[in-house]
């Protein structure tokens, strides 16, 4: 009876061309969630290299102003602006989102809930195709006449709205179109993730049996879908201002430039949680597995996350404390901002409580997960200073802000990704990664990371503003002690970038010559570890689709011989 249900369900999905094209086309035109995940992953990794190269160029300019940067040449002010703008945009929209949400969401959700694919495989494929075009558009925008857009990733008008101000009419419009296409791709992806989690779970998998990382990716998708609408509206208005000569943001024509800031940050703040939640989910799953301990407070965590999500829609104006908003409104947003640090802290405490008393194994994925907690905490704590509107009058638009959000984004987009990659690599590619190289890469990334951004906190407190091409033009900021800190940051960046070669070496070497991965190398409970590594097309043989008998975190139970208890093992 049960077998039959699984089979019927599988048969329904057969219509979605499960035996699609062969050969190279199989990889370009596939609807298999694992292939689409790889497409997102490799596109995201490529874009990360592009974004990293940009950071290298502008950090060199800041440390050694005016000198020729190896591999790039002399950096002009316009190029500098374009580099910082596109670095930020690429890292958030073309690295953090595609890798954390799309790549891992696509790979993990069907496998972890015991489905053979997403519920809308063709929409999934369309999502990647639109995303791929958006990546081409943003890359192309760097090479058009006038150069890439240089008006900051937040694209405030009037600078972004008028070619005569930003000097990059074509670059600005292409940037906007690229971002808009990327949103379309993630809308399609989000619909898929949410519907799949709601409708395609394995028989027996109740709401509280869903692995946290799936919940987190899906809650992130919900936040994205609810917050992106106003920004799309705002982006269309900006596009019209740029190309049709409307005046939505032009005070001379009766428009309002601060309106954009509201529409942007109404999306922008939830967006930071959109990328944060998947990384937290990854950390949770890894911590539970490597501490061999049941997750402390599953429901607490879930409800806390939902509360964070709701609250995240009411904090946006903390980015606008000095944009001329009403001070009474600033007070309201200060309170909500300070409030939202409470659930974030709670998530951290729950993870730490899970570690307490566990039998911790410090494999590479666990190191990354622990580093995530340590580094992200610094980012979260510095956010509280910025959220206090009085302090923010001074801190706004300084390197303190920049260091704050790099202490959140770097742990999320880079540490979280490496945690996930090293943990699921055996499942994704069927090979084990080298733990030794992994640890070298880990320390070679974490130590320089702190040397990059702690000096930037100091510079920010010293009053160094963001988005300035050459500090030598500002007597107050041109001193040798300041310059020394800038050089430390840049050198640390070079070291960190160099250590990424270890990762790429490890990645490729493991793919080619790595030890063959068993089904369940980490003795984990969740369903993806019950199938082959890598999983076959359809994930499980149709007659062996898994069924679920318990929650995902039954580790180290005293009443059992083995210290784990897979979700699909009959009681």
């Amino acid at each position, binding site marked *: *009876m*049960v077998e039959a*249900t699984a089979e019927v*369900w599988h048969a329904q999905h057969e219509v979605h061309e499960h035996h699609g094209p062969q050969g190279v086309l199989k990889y370009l035109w596939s609807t298999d969630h694992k292939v689409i995940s790889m497409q997102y992953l490799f596109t995201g990794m490529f874009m990360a290299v592009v974004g990293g190269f940009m950071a290298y160029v502008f950090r060199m300019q800041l440390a050694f102003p005016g000198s020729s940067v190896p591999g790039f040449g002399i950096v002009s002010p316009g190029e500098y602006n374009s580099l910082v703008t596109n670095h930020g945009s690429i890292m958030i929209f073309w690295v953090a989102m595609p890798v954390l949400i799309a790549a891992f969401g696509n790979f993990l959700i069907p496998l972890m809930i015991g489905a053979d694919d997403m*519920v*809308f495989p063709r*929409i999934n494929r369309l999502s990647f195709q639109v995303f791929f075009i958006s990546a081409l558009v943003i890359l192309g925008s760097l090479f058009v006449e006038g150069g890439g857009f240089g008006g900051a990733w937040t694209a405030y008008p009037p600078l972004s709205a008028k070619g005569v101000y930003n000097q990059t009419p074509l670059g600005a419009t292409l940037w906007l179109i690229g971002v808009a296409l990327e949103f379309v791709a993630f*809308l399609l992806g*989000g*619909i*898929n993730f*949410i*519907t799949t989690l*709601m*409708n*395609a*779970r*394995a*028989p*027996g*998998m*109740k709401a*509280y049996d869903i692995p946290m990382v799936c919940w987190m990716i899906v809650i992130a998708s919900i936040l994205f*879908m*609810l*917050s*992106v*609408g*106003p*920004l*799309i*509206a*705002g982006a*269309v*208005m900006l596009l*019209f201002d740029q190309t*049709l*000569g*409307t*005046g*939505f943001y032009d005070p001379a*024509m*009766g*428009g*309002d430039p601060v*309106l954009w800031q*509201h*529409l942007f940050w*109404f999306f922008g703040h939830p967006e930071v949680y959109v990328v944060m939640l998947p990384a937290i989910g990854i950390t949770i799953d890894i911590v539970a597995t490597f501490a061999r301990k*049941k997750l402390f407070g599953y*429901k607490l965590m879930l409800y806390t996350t939902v509360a964070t999500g709701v609250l995240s829609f009411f904090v946006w104006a903390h980015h606008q404390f000095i944009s001329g908003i009403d001070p009474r409104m600033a007070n309201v947003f200060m309170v909500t901002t300070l409030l939202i640090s409470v659930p974030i802290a709670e998530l951290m405490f729950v993870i730490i409580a899970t570690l307490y008393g566990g039998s911790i194994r410090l494999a590479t994925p666990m190191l990354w997960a622990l580093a995530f907690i340590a580094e992200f905490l610094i980012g979260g704590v510095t956010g509280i200073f910025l959220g206090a509107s009085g302090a923010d009058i001074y801190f706004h638009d300084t390197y303190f802000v920049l260091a704050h959000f790099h202490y959140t984004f770097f742990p999320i987009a880079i540490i979280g990704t490496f945690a996930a990659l090293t943990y699921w690599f055996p499942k994704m590619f069927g090979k084990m990664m080298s733990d030794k190289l992994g640890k070298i890469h880990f320390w070679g990334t974490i130590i320089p990371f702190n040397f990059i951004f702690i000096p930037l906190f100091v510079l920010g407190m010293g009053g160094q503003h963001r988005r300035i091409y050459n500090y030598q033009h500002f007597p107050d900021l041109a001193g040798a002690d300041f310059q020394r800190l800038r050089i430390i940051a840049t050198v640390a960046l070079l070291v960190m970038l160099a250590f990424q070669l270890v990762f790429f070496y490890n990645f490729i070497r493991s793919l080619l010559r790595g030890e063959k991965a068993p089904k369940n190398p980490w003795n984990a409970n969740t369903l993806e570890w019950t199938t082959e590594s890598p999983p076959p097309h359809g994930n499980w043989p149709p007659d062996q689709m898994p*069924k*679920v*008998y*318990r*929650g995902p975190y039954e580790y180290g*139970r*005293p*009443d059992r011989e083995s210290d784990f208890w897979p979700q699909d093992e009959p*009681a």
Partner: protein
Amino acid sequence: MATESAAHEIEQRPEPVSRPKILADGVMGMLLFVFAEIMMFAGLISAHRIVRSQVAGEMWPPYGQPRLPVQETAVNTAALLVSGIVLVFAHLAFKKEASRARLPILIALLLGLFFVGSQGAEWVALLGEGLTIQSSTYGGFFYLIVGAHGLHAIAAILALGWASFELYKGRLTGSQLATVSVFWYFVVLLWPVLYLIVYL
């Protein structure tokens, strides 16, 4: 619940049978899409309200700009609302016997076409009176918001047209009809709100 939180208690569960499903996949996906769309229109509406509230002396429409044809559009509004009601009947008919839904779906489609057509005529007239997207933020928001709705209406007509074609071929399933209708209802129910805000 209590058993789950007690860490080491073994919970006895009945043998799992089937995959839990909340709603048909298509309907659920469409609902999610509609939520995102509602937020987009919420963004447009709040932008409109904010800009309008900043006009000195609430001169809206601003000096020299034409008034919008409130009465004519009320007729369109009524036509669109009726199309929504007709589609509800189409659903009921479909449940009894699929082919009985043909006529009501056709009527809904024609009403939708009438709506889009007369909105188009209205645009032509207004353009002639000097209301353009550049002439003022008043004109800008009018064409932006009404245009965005118009595009959705056209998309809804195409979708319902496809459904009605499938119905004639005898291939339309209940959940396909439901998916398309969710979008249609969205277009219908959104319009009165926009009418109130943009026209009145």
